[in-house]
């Protein structure tokens, strides 16, 4: 068991370092919302980005049944989005897009 423990701790330490490096060197530090229209307009954008509504349907049903936008007000959605982003380990982009959708449709 001692060697397994050493391996686990070593792997964990390497991962922490790697994640920190990747996270700190990735160029786009802050997510800036892209308007749906802009995405549709831009020719360079070869991959169609998923809308917040679609992400909400896919992501928020993974663990429990997804709440509808009208279930909470904007302030509550901000708290819930941060809570879910951390608890469900969502990417920043997913959680920001879904939050925008929920706040726009409630």
């Amino acid at each position, binding site marked *: *068991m*001692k060697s*397994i*423990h050493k391996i*686990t*701790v070593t792997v*964990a330490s390497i*991962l*922490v370092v790697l*994640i*920190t490096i*990747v*996270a*700190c060197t*990735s160029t*786009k*530090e*802050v*997510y800036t919302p892209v308007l749906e229209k802009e995405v549709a307009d831009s020719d360079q954008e070869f*991959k169609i980005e*998923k809308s917040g509504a679609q*992400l909400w349907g*896919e*992501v928020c*049903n*993974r*663990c*429990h*049944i*997804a*709440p*509808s936008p009208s*279930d909470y*007000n*904007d*302030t*509550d959605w*901000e*708290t*819930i989005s*941060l*809570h879910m*982003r*951390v*608890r*469900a*380990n*969502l*990417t*920043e*982009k*997913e959680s920001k897009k879904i939050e925008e959708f929920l706040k726009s449709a409630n």
Partner: protein
Amino acid sequence: MKKLILSLFVFVFGYQLYGQTYNTFEPSKTQFMLRGYGHTGFEYMDSNDEAESTFLGLTYAPIFLYKHSDRLMFEAELEFKLEGNELEIGLEYADVMYVLNKNITVRAGKFLLPFGTFMERLHPAWINRLPNAPLGYGHDGIAPSSGIGVELRGAFDLGGPRLNYSIYSTNGPRLNDGSEEPEEAGILQFENFEDNNLAKAYGGRIGILPFSDSSAELGFSAYSTSGTGEEDSQYEDVGAFLFALDFSYVKPISPLKGIVDIKAQYNNSNVDTATFIEVHEDGDAEEYSFDNQSNSFYAQLSYRPTMVESDFMKKLEFVGRYSDFNAPEGAEWEEASVQYAFGLNYWLSWRSVIKLSYQTTETEGGHGADGITNTDGLFIHWAIGF
């Protein structure tokens, strides 16, 4: 202490209710939210022809969420339970989280451990599709449910697939050396407010969502410590290594006119072999040891006909779950159990559900028992989240 907690609770709750009801002013940056869930029900159990039935007192778990800023947040959950006419209060978790950057969030305090997914994501009564946990979780379980320590977690977008991770260090588990409860010798206990030695536990989970529609997730978790026994005791250096594999698949399937939801998790616990003492009735003491390996597994399939015409059918859900649990041969708590659970749920809303379930469990051995015990259970639960 209880009085203090209760009156604090009533104060916070009352204030919050007032705030939420008359909240017409501009939203502020900091925000406090009171949430929670509870469940109540009726259970009938028939074990080797001995029947018992009981109405359950309401279990109530208030959750406090406090968003300090867009990056800093606090979460805590208390649990109120009636146990033998006594009110029991438990602290499920209480932690702060800080979003360092788009890929890293730090959490510290007492948090639910991402060891597999059941305890962290699926156990609350309004999320779990069946009235109870699969074999291998809960009181006599082998999977750690929460820990006190620090954690880094986050997610990476791989342009379609996504990867999420969590890495933590917590107070380590404690080995029951059998000095007080000889029948539990060798069991790991995870509920530790204070560590009993210097060896901490290290662990983490990596999850991969291979498809861009988030339908599937595969996870691998590990949890390791180099010492579980009391400091300066012969058990101090008894190490432990646990791992889990989890799987989740949720997808609306048009030909089936509904949503299919599959969840599964395998847990394996491996504790270094140690020698324990068994005291016989005549006072003789005997040393014994065993290969301290346990495992448990569950797989659950549920289906909600969300695309059918009938409004009544839409709210129904059919569930089936298989689970098994194996505790080490030679231990006082040696056990091999298999359980089949079937359920029919009626969803009143996205977080309120009436669950009807039938379960049949075959247990071989188990805490001091010999032979095979067959238990049939019928459950009616009502769970509500708010």
